[in-house]
């Protein structure tokens, strides 16, 4: 029996991976998901992760890693005193204030350990093309290769990290999500922890662009007017 572990944040990328694996990966029999509460201001995404996992997986656990928020005070995502950087102010920045120090390596290390313990040989990582553009080294191809090199040292229970979206843009990811039946209403992307998505942070900006490029209206609510009609977008 082939098992896998998917860290699911509740955002689009990990939700699309979950549905892609569930519906299109015949080589995977059982899915285990982990969601990390690392003290992120947008903890609304955790409820989305629960919704996405419900009925689709063998086991879903929410990991209390809120201590990370107390340690990683340099990030706007884990320190409420630092404003979330908006796209128009930081694009092209090598590492923005929205970056959470070494987060992906920490999460993937825990997932790899969990995979070993449940007998899974694959961890699916939600890195996408836009991550490198947004200034996240831990979403790059080089990072993926390096962490796999590290895990390959394991002498018995080797775990491989796969990142099926790593060379895909948001348009392609959302199209894959539509194809595999993702309910985008139950996904959360915005870095701000508000009731409505801000529409201006890098996470919102790439999400909106992905929907526009698919000529679709994003079903979540934004606090600013998004001119969907100017781009001939229609409801999913």
């Amino acid at each position: 029996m082939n098992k896998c572990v998917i860290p699911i944040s509740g955002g689009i990328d990990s939700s699309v991976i979950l549905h892609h694996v569930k519906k299109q990966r015949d080589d995977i029999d059982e899915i285990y998901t982990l969601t990390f509460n690392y003290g992120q201001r947008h903890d609304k995404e955790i409820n989305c992760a629960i919704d996405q996992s419900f009925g689709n997986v063998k086991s879903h656990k929410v990991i209390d890693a809120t201590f990370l928020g107390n340690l990683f005070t340099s990030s706007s995502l884990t320190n409420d005193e630092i404003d979330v950087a908006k796209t128009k102010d930081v694009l092209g920045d090598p590492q923005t204030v929205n970056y959470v120090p070494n987060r992906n390596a920490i999460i993937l290390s825990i997932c790899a350990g969990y995979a070993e313990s449940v007998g899974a040989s694959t961890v699916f990582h939600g890195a996408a093309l836009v991550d490198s553009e947004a200034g996240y080294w831990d979403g790059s191809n080089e990072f993926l290769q390096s962490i796999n090199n590290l895990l390959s040292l394991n002498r018995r229970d080797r775990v491989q990290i796969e990142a099926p979206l790593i060379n895909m843009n948001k348009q392609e990811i959302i199209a894959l999500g539509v194809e595999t039946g993702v309910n985008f209403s139950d996904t959360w992307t915005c870095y701000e922890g508000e009731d409505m998505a801000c529409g201006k942070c890098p996470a919102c900006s790439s999400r909106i662009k992905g929907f526009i490029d698919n000529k679709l209206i994003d079903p979540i609510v934004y606090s600013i007017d998004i001119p969907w009609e100017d781009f001939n977008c229609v409801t999913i």
Partner: protein
Amino acid sequence: MCGIFGSNNFSKFVSLYDINKQRGYFSFGMLGARKDNNSLYIKKQPGEINLDQLPSHVEHEHQLFLGHTQAPTSQERNYTTTTSHPFESQSWIIAHNGIINNYDSLKNEHTSNHTNPVDSSIIPVLLEKNTHDDILETLEKTFSLIKGLVGAWCYNKRTGRCFLVRMGSTLYITNNDQTFSSIKLEGLKIMPDNSIYEICDHGIIPQVNLQNNTSFFTID
């Protein structure tokens, strides 16, 4: 990703370097150009530089100073001049801040043997390949091919004309002189996204609008 900056005033250029250093300590690159386009000064080196120790003729004989600070965001981690900004071709010298997502396909479809591992190196190659009588058309055709983030200065060696390109990457400019910077400073305003501007004697002026080839939708 990196920082780009420039000025017609050397002291201001030094100040801009100090500020843009935070975007990349890996290496420094610069171009000094004269108004009469008679000689160019190019400097590249790993790590930081003390610009006060440049030969005095650099400041006195040039009227436009264009700089670049590099973070090690490409696969290349060892400093070599061939993998560091600015990049040069027969007619162009360029420096770039951003990431070119379709670098591999550009290499395969538009060049025969381009092996430089740094994505920015493809820009002068494409500018040469798309050369047109109208230099603005050359720039428009070239940057329309690129998908990703671009903040760039492009100096044309034949004409002495210099252009700024912004597709996504932040870039701030003045109205009344020739100052620009990847980092926001007092007195600078954001250069409109998806556009090409030209650095002229009387300021930095709009020349071409480009389509949005970035992965982001922004509302200013």
